[in-house]
């Protein structure tokens, strides 16, 4: 366990989220993160790419404060409202979609009428308005992920952390959700960090891609994606898109990550 007061994540007045020279060494001596510095300006959409075992999950745990860095500091705005979406939708099987998506509000003590109204709104935004009374077992993989997304949206996040959210879904569903996520980001204006190991997906959803090296993870490329802001399926087969993914692929290959 890390010790020392300076390691507690600090909330600053800056509207950006900043990771300053953070390191994480586990008790068994494994170094998950080398000094890593990363700045996420408010409202930006950043994809974090890296080979398996580059410390992506460690970074996510540090950002969610489920873990602490061994060294370095994480600065967050005072009024940051964070929400997360993971690869596993993490739905409670005994709750309906509505009650699952309302969970964060329920835990925060929001009265039922108010929380139901807000949750129904979020469900409509992810296209699940008709599935509110269904149970997770009755949903497809894509619908479960949409429910998980709605649960993240109900807190009106200013920072949305997505940890390989669509990795377990089929290609068509994944692309539809990529589009949907980008639309939601434009409408809501939250800061988004999208962790993935898929180059195409990173280039498609984000405005900026950060490539991490093999463990201990450090930044090997911080690349603003030179693509139009409006993304459509046609872009996936565009030469400009291929050029951008090529840059990311090269960086990944040089970082020692197998593709």
């Amino acid at each position, binding site marked *: 366990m890390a010790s020392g007061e300076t390691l507690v994540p600090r909330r600053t007045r800056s509207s950006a989220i900043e990771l300053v020279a953070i390191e994480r060494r586990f008790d068994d001596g494994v170094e998950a993160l080398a000094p890593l510095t990363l700045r996420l300006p408010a409202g930006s959409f950043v994809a974090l790419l890296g080979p398996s075992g580059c410390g992506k999950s460690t970074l996510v745990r540090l950002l*969610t404060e*489920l873990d602490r860095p061994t060294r370095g500091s994480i600065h967050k705005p005072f009024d940051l409202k964070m929400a*997360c979406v*993971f690869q*596993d939708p*993490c739905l*409670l*099987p*005994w709750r309906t979609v509505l009650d699952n998506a309302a*969970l*964060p509000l*329920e*835990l*925060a003590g929001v009265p039922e009428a108010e929380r139901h109204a807000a949750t129904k709104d979020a469900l409509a935004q992810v296209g699940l308005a008709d599935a509110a009374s269904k*149970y*997770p*077992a009755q949903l497809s993989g894509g619908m479960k992920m949409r429910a998980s997304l709605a649960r993240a949206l109900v807190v009106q996040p200013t920072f949305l952390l997505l940890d390989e959210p669509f990795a377990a879904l089929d290609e068509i569903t994944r692309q539809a959700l990529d589009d949907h996520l980008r639309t939601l980001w434009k409408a809501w204006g939250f800061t988004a960090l999208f962790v993935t190991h898929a180059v195409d997906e990173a280039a498609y959803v984000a405005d900026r891609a950060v490539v991490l090296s093999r463990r201990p993870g450090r930044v090997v490329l911080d690349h603003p994606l030179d693509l139009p802001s409006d993304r459509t399926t046609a872009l996936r087969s565009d030469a400009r898109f291929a050029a951008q993914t090529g840059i990311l692929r090269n960086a990944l290959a040089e970082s020692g990550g197998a593709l």
Partner: protein
Amino acid sequence: MTRRTPWGALLPPLVPAILVIGVLEALVRGDVVPAFLVPAPSQIARALVDEGPSLYPPLAQTVKASLLGFLIAAVVGVTAAIALASSRRVQQAIYPYAVFSQTIPIVSIAPLLVIWFGWDRTALASAVIVSIFPVVANTLAGLRSTDPALVDLFRLYGASSGATLFRLRLPAALPQIFTGLRVAGGLAVIGAVVGEFITGQGIGGAIGVAQQRQRVDIIFAGVLLASLLGLALFGFINLAAWRSLRSWHVSESRH
């Protein structure tokens, strides 16, 4: 998948029952098996009617002792499991003795129960003691196997330990809690009858009296009533499990 109807589910176990009853009746009537050792099913049926006064008032006592015993075991057992699950140290300190207590034959301490709880409450105490352990063990196993990803999710949303217990860990443990309750239901009846053998009350006492009178038909009738009581309790618990789990848990959902 095949559609299940009540008849479809009842028919398979009815076949061997009818078969055994028929064969037994034939064997006893044909004097292959002496009626003073094994009564014919028709004799048991007659005992259930004719010996009513010596069977049904005691049965009411057994019903009361086993139902109340089961309820106490369920409430105390789940509460104890929550307390044990709250701290690893407490669990390590206490749990071995809970397991040890299971090796004590209930019959051997029944005389103590009479001294401690009096004649009227011995059957109840015996029912509680016998049926509480499966509730504790299964609830504890359920509480300890909460999905760590969901625990992280609750931490992320700043849930209190109380909210995590009541909104996550207990509901997630419900299928295992019901497994414990099903076992406890049957054991509560057994515990009550064992206690009654010592006190001479209830269906256990009625069976004891029938043994002294060499009335195997009444013994069989008493055994049948005790089993039916256990079966009814089991059915009731199954119904409760089905009602609370059908919408989400594979064990109770039949699409």
